[in-house]
């Protein structure tokens, strides 16, 4: 169970996320929709603590996540994997090493850390990475550089990396916004697969309402940092959308998602 309590993030005087309270049971697939700048990204980034909340609390299985530091914070991030609109792979490294990044926090002790800095991984870890790649039909690309892959392939590599973290949650920040429809479908199916088969809670920011309706168990709509709708896909009718946003659904979807804000992470 992931609980957000009155979660708020202010940038200057403006509240990007404004008092969001949600409770998400383990294993649910939740689509978060809303216009650009509605606070979807900030919300997801706060769960992973890439962005610090200004106020409010995040609880996972009753444990407070908001105050974690150092090793405990890294452990939390490992349990709550994240994928991004721009994939955030290391372009110049091969696909296998990119996936192995998911194991970095699973290696205890200074010697293992030293080995990781020399890009040395155990045969078991490599086998695990290859299995994960194989699951998403990318085993053949394992030794290619990430930059040689298409966007859809890169996003699946990112999901494979996330799976190597052995997470309980998967946060997906506009995972298909940079992809063509065919690749978008493949990536969304991969997300639903890890939700169904591995029992991960999946929180996914989406721009297309139809995509959200098709793949998610629950839809949360945001506007100006607040939750304005929270219910089943069936309840989010076109009339409901127009009532929430004041424009028809087609007009909402015609807006392009903004480029992701990539800032410094301390």
């Amino acid at each position: 169970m992931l609980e957000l309590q009155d979660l708020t993030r202010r940038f200057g005087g403006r509240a990007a996320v404004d008092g969001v309270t949600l409770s998400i049971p383990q294993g649910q697939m939740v689509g978060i929709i809303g216009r650009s700048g509605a606070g979807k990204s900030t919300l997801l980034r706060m769960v992973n603590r890439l962005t610090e909340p200004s106020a409010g609390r995040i609880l996972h299985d009753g444990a407070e996540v908001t105050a974690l530091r150092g090793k405990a914070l890294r452990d939390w991030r490992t349990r709550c994997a994240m994928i991004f609109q721009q994939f955030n792979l290391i372009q110049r490294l091969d696909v296998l090493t990119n996936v192995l990044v998911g194991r970095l926090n699973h290696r205890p002790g200074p010697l293992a850390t030293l080995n990781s800095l020399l890009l040395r991984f155990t045969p078991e870890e490599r086998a695990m990475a290859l299995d994960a790649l194989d699951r998403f039909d990318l085993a053949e690309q394992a030794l290619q550089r990430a930059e040689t892959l298409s966007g859809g392939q890169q996003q699946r590599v990112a999901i494979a990396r996330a799976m190597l973290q052995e997470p309980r949650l998967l946060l997906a920040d506009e995972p298909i916004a940079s992809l063509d429809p065919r690749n978008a479908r493949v990536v969304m199916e991969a997300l639903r697969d890890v939700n169904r088969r591995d029992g991960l809670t999946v929180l996914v920011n989406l721009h297309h309402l139809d995509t959200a309706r098709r793949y998610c168990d629950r839809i949360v709509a945001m506007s100006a940092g607040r939750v304005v709708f929270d219910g089943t896909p069936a309840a989010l009718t076109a009339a409901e959308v127009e009532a929430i946003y004041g424009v028809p659904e087609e007009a909402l979807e015609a807006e392009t998602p903004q480029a992701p804000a990539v800032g410094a992470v301390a």
Partner: protein
Amino acid sequence: MSEFYPSSLAAGLPRAGDYFARLLPDLRWATLFGGWETEGSVAFWFYRLDKWALLLLETANMAALATLAGGAVALLLAFPAARNVAPSGLAYQLSRRGLEAMRTVPEIVYALILVWAFGVGPLAGILAIAAHTTGALGKLFAEAIENAEMGPWEGVRAAGGTWAQACRFAMLPQVAPNMVSYLLLRFEINVRGASVIGFVGAGGIGQELYLVISQNYYEEISAIIVLIVLVVAMIDLLSDALRRRLRGEARA
């Protein structure tokens, strides 16, 4: 600036020309390819080539060692000195200011101090050049890091990687080709630097150059300068070829 008069420039220029004229070797067509005891031959001009070649080798060695040592320290200091990845404001300020201090002091000043501490010889020269190199390369490395994309960094951090792992996995592969390029460029600069640093007793060809200049052995001055130019040009060509190859491949 107040002593910069056109008249003194006019008076001095011919004297400078005069000095360069004296440096010209006395070469004669008839005996150009004669032995080292024949006046007017190339061999006569470079009659101490064996000694100078050894000194030049020492100079290049000094430069190589100093570049590697300085580059290694610069690599470690560049990450805290890059604004986008510095772990804290304090670490940023300390490493930035430290690098600044190291490159503000000219290597010849370091050499003077270190010769006093370690005695006459190449060790003082290597340390002096390495110190200056750390400062100069550290800044360039840090700027390369600041220009890198932060997406991969977020990816590694979001996966639970430590700061050091993010530096290694997300940052180094992006900036390594740039860093190697800077390192090779610095090596060329350091060969020049190492040729001069011997003036204060810190080893290499400079000691010999200083000697012949102060003794007015004109032909030997030009011989040594020609040799230095040749060596620097050779290293230039070599590192250029290396850089071009690195741009193609390079998996860090």
